């Protein structure tokens, strides 16, 4: 047996390089960012003491209508994408799970979009499906029914761009969550269904409501948490669908797009951008704790 000293050494041989890198590229930037957020730091990462502005950046951020609007955009986006993905992924999983033939084929088809990047998906959506001209697929299909052409991405009344934004992500991620649900379904004991059948529960809605859905609770909680966190980080499809040579339009800016243009745009206002990042971090921390409390995570040990 190795002595404790040697074991400690080996622990750090295995864990050290990873922990060091993670510290350097996650914790150091976080602390640095916190520091920068108290300074007027344009184009610089090492501001002078005279540039200290206290909580000025935070005040500016919280009274900036565009920043608050970006939080509103996130809330709206989440309200669309979370229920839509949840329902579609669960429905796909239920249907695929009951297939006796070609199950692997259908699972692959729905899972395949996971391999596609948001950039490529946005390109297809923007330039082929919803391109707003006559040779676009959506307008072609509408044309068969005699409907007018729609400029999907630039129409703000009604805000058709939401249809484009939401369907991209729905297509890309539904299969991923379907896999999670399939795994959850496979963990449900067949005996539960047998018992339900003995008790006279009819297959279909009743069984789903009283057996399947409650048994999927852990999976559902994980899926919703992941969906919300990922919606919060949305950047790729918004940027690629909506920005053009003239820049980004004044609507549909999620927080990350807003931060990108504030901190790394022409202005390079890193102090302000850092304050925004810190505010977002706090929001995420609070939201995670609230959600965890709400869903009763971490209570596992008491059961």
């Amino acid at each position, binding site marked *: 047996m190795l002595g404790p000293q040697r*074991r*400690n050494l*080996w*622990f750090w041989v*295995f*864990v050290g*390089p*990873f*922990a060091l*890198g*993670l510290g350097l590229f*996650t914790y*150091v*930037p*976080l602390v*640095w*960012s916190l520091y*920068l957020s108290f300074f007027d730091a344009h184009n610089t*990462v090492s501001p002078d003491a005279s540039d200290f502005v206290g909580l000025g950046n935070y005040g500016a951020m919280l009274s900036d209508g565009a920043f608050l609007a970006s939080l509103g955009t996130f809330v709206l986006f989440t309200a669309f994408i979370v229920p839509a993905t949840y329902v579609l992924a669960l429905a*796909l999983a239920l*249907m695929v799970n009951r*297939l006796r033939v070609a199950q692997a084929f259908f699972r692959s*088809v*729905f*899972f*395949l*979009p*996971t*391999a*596609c*990047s948001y950039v*490529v998906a946005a390109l*297809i*959506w923007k*330039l*082929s*499906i919803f391109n707003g001209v*006559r*040779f676009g*697929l959506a307008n072609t299909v509408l044309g068969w029914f005699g409907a007018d052409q729609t400029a999907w991405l630039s129409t703000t009344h009604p805000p058709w761009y939401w249809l484009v934004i939401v369907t991209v992500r729905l297509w890309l991620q539904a299969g991923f969550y379907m896999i*999670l649900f399939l*795994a959850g379904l496979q*963990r449900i004991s067949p005996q539960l269904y047998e018992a339900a059948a003995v008790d006279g529960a009819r297959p279909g809605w009743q069984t789903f409501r009283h057996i399947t859905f409650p048994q999927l609770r*852990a*999976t559902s909680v994980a899926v919703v948490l*992941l969906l919300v966190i990922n919606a919060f*980080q949305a*950047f790729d499809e918004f*940027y*690629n669908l909506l920005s053009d040579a003239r820049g980004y339009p004044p609507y549909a800016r999620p927080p*990350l797009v807003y*931060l*990108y243009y504030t901190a*790394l745009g022409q202005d390079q206002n*890193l102090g302000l951008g*850092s304050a925004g*990042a810190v505010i977002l*971090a706090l929001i*995420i*921390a609070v939201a995670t704790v609230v959600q965890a409390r709400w869903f009763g995570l971490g209570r596992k040990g008491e059961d």
Partner: protein
Amino acid sequence: MQDALTRAGRALRVVLLVALALLFLVPFYLLVRNGLASERDITAPDWTFFPHALQWSNLTEVFRDPNLPLGRALLNSTLIAVSTTAGTVVLASLAGYGLARIPYRHANVVFYAILGTLMVPAAVTFVPSFVLVSTLGWISTLRGLIIPTLFSAFACFIFRQYFLGFPKELEDAARVDGLGYWRTYWKIVVPNSRPVFAAVGTIVFIGAWNAFLWPLVIGQDQESWTVQVALSTFTTAQSLNLHELFVAAGVSIAPLVVVFLLLQRYIVAGVERSGIDD
């Protein structure tokens, strides 16, 4: 009666499933249709489901276009995805093994410090990370594109959970043979854990190939563009012929579709492992 209803229900479900499957394949169909059509076929006012003639020459044309550095971008993406995958898997698996198997008084503190970073999404760290990388002078370099992304708490977590369930008897046998931690790890543990390495490896590879925000922020010179940044530039800022853009997008996604279909069962296993620990 009941029987007929059940059968009708089943038929309806199959029809719905086939319809959804076709709908899910439409974007891939459009990629191929537009990528192999002439510009005139794509922009024709009347929709055709298949181009009048397949233009395979689009494939060579797109690599010769001096405006679109596709070859260089593909090379960058390959270098980045391969080294990110290799680096992430080595670093995260070593750390995961150490956390799972080597007794150390403060192992829990280290573990929670690693896990805590999972709560800090990229949304929050990309501005400060950009600050750090620009201080290091790594803007528009492969170093800047690769090294900061090598430390995945998510991968480390999956490896740790996996190694906690690794059969101890195998390691004990190695210990009896006089192997230390290091050699036990490489000679016994790694060769017996190929599926989890394949699962994490493919997921990391796909993520690295498709990554956008970090390469956009760091890869500012055209020479350091990844294929996603190159495609994005021509989707948003500059214009390019549609058939070229679509064939380039098709070329960018083809290797991934192959990797995906070949290694799908590992990816599925990895996704299941990552979703929920119960």
